[in-house]
């Protein structure tokens, strides 16, 4: 166990905590491990689950045991909709990834594809577990609100070993825009099969997860360029950040690159962005590490947009959202946007206030020219 003075970036704060590590590869193991570290190690706050199924299971156990679950990047909407009082989700809910993809399509892609938004042929492909289903639901709902028809809307098993049926169906559907929610292995298989069967789609928006990790570039090479990713923002326009946050962002990026030898992806930025205010603002404000005191401190947060390094602010719902009275613990100021794989790397292109670069490569070149 390492004593940590977390948040110790530019300005160390006086929060002494002990870090207890728990490992779990799947939800049931996660639940058992959460129970162990709470009951045997006396842990008061759990954080660091990275996938929705883990986040759902572990946050349920945290709530049952009355300790705080501080979610960083697991995003299934259900995480904050179960009436729990000790679960806080700093990143955006999964459905907002889908919403952002649709908004981006309407505002930025339609004009570049020379079509009215309602005339666009949009295909929605989603892996059928917690994350994919939740993002798919968000995209579907937004499409309905905007009066955009989805010409193809289908879930698939992420462990599929052959993407031929999916790609063949997409070839039949002839979409202008493909919105794909997938994990890394299926993302690679999908694009390789698209190339093999010559499936041409003028614009592709992947949704976080498999489309956002560096492995994709390693696998697809230059063919990755041009693909959009609806995701947690990566490197946002510094003007969108408050001055002290700009400095933190620069230091985080420098330290990350020094350790990992590559620029951080959206998940890495979001994980830091979620923990930084916990140690910098929430815990110092809490009267004690008692979960009720930490909860009160978290609920008192009211940081404007641009307070976290990915452009987010911090204010949690507490059964008080008119459109969703069951929601509690969701950061209603979490930032979401779209970045693009460009030859220089991942570049934020949407929304305008966070963007660092212009949208490029729309429509995408044919496979033979990529």
């Amino acid at each position, binding site marked *: 166990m390492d004593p940590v003075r977390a948040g110790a970036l530019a300005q160390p704060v006086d929060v002494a905590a002990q870090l207890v590590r728990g490992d779990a590869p799947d939800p049931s193991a996660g639940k058992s491990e959460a129970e162990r570290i709470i009951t045997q190690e006396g842990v008061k706050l759990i954080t660091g689950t990275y996938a929705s199924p883990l986040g759902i299971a572990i946050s349920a156990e945290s709530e049952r045991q009355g300790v705080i679950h501080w979610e960083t990047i697991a995003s299934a909407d259900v995480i904050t909709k179960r009436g729990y009082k000790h679960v806080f989700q700093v990143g955006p809910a999964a459905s907002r990834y889908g919403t952002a993809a649709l908004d981006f399509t309407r505002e930025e892609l339609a004009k570049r594809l020379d079509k009215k938004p309602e005339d666009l042929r949009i295909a929605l492909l989603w892996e059928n577990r917690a994350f994919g289903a939740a993002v798919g639901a968000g995209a579907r709902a937004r499409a309905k609100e905007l009066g955009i028809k989805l010409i193809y809307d289908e879930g698939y098993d992420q*462990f599929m070993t*052959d993407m*031929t*049926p999916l790609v063949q169906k997409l*070839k*039949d559907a002839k979409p202008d825009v493909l919105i794909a929610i997938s994990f890394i*292995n299926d993302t690679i298989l999908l694009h390789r099969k698209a190339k*093999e*069967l010559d499936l041409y789609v003028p614009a592709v928006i992947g949704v976080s997860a498999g489309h956002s990790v560096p*492995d994709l570039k390693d696998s697809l090479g230059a063919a990755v360029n041009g693909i959009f990713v609806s995701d947690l923002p990566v490197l946002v326009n510094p003007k969108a950040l408050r001055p002290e946050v700009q400095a933190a962002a620069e230091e985080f990026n420098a330290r990350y690159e020094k350790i990992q030898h590559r620029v951080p992806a959206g998940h890495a930025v979001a994980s830091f962005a979620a923990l930084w205010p916990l140690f910098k603002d929430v815990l110092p404000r809490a009267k004690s590490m008692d979960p009720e005191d930490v909860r009160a401190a978290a609920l008192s947060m009211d940081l404007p947009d641009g307070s976290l390094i990915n452009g987010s602010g911090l204010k949690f719902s507490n059964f008080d959202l008119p459109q969703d009275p069951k929601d509690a613990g969701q950061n209603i100021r979490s930032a979401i946007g779209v970045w693009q794989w460009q030859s220089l790397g991942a570049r934020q292109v949407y929304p305008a206030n966070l963007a660092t670069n212009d949208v490029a490569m729309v429509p995408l070149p044919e496979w033979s020219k990529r």
Partner: protein
Amino acid sequence: MAAIAQLVVSGVMLGGIYAIMSIGLTLIFGVLKIVNFAHGEFLMLAMYVAWAIASLAGVNAYAAMIFVIPVLFGFGVLVYLLIIRSAVDKPHLIVVFATMGLSIVMQNLALVLMTADLRDVPPLFGGAPIRIGPLYLRVELVLGFLISVVVTLALMVFMKRSYLGKAIRATVQDRDAAMLMGINVPRLFLLTFAGGSALVGLAGCIMLPLYSTFPTVGLNFVLIAYVVVVLGGMGSMGGALLGGMCIGIVQSLSGYYIAPAYGQLFYFLVFLLVMIFRPDGLFGQRGAAMVGINE
């Protein structure tokens, strides 16, 4: 029409790949009468070794076979001597737990040593497909299919014609009688297990250009391998080839015409129906599971 043709041809080609990754399993099952629950992890190891050689030596994964097959043969010898030899005559559950334990150890070792990052090799000819009329086929898929068919047929001939093949079949039919005829059965078991493992090495080299490798990659394929082996008729090599193609086509067509979300559901449904109506597998002989290697 073009879509159906594409789906069927892709399904058949993929079936060939499924067959080659299952043949080692069926060989070991047919002769030693044990199920290797670490089969998927043997495949993972083969893919990692192929990746390492391809990356370090700058050769393609097919050329890496020259190294990967002996490495997996050696690994098979090691596993046989350390784990299988003492478990082979004991109740089935001992082998089940022993190989399952090996599977967990291998997965976790891979995670520690190689991390969860995906590893793959660049496509041949820049990934451009072969185009035949309306059909598109990836070069690596066609190559994998051809190698798979040739190796399966060669193995069938080997089993029928060669001295070692005859000795294997004799041992399968009656182990005691084979011993009395002077066949060194323990050595034959060792050779079969290592040979089965070497075949997984071959499969790894064929699959690496098609799939990325990572510590749990075996889990994606091992269930298919079990289904192929049982569907084809346990211990039958020709059956594995036809069983693989059957699974490939069912997967392809059900994914297109019904729903890609339920791909596994349909081939398991076919599997269940075959088990109910032809318990010895589609292409197996009656009692094949007891007798072992089929013709």
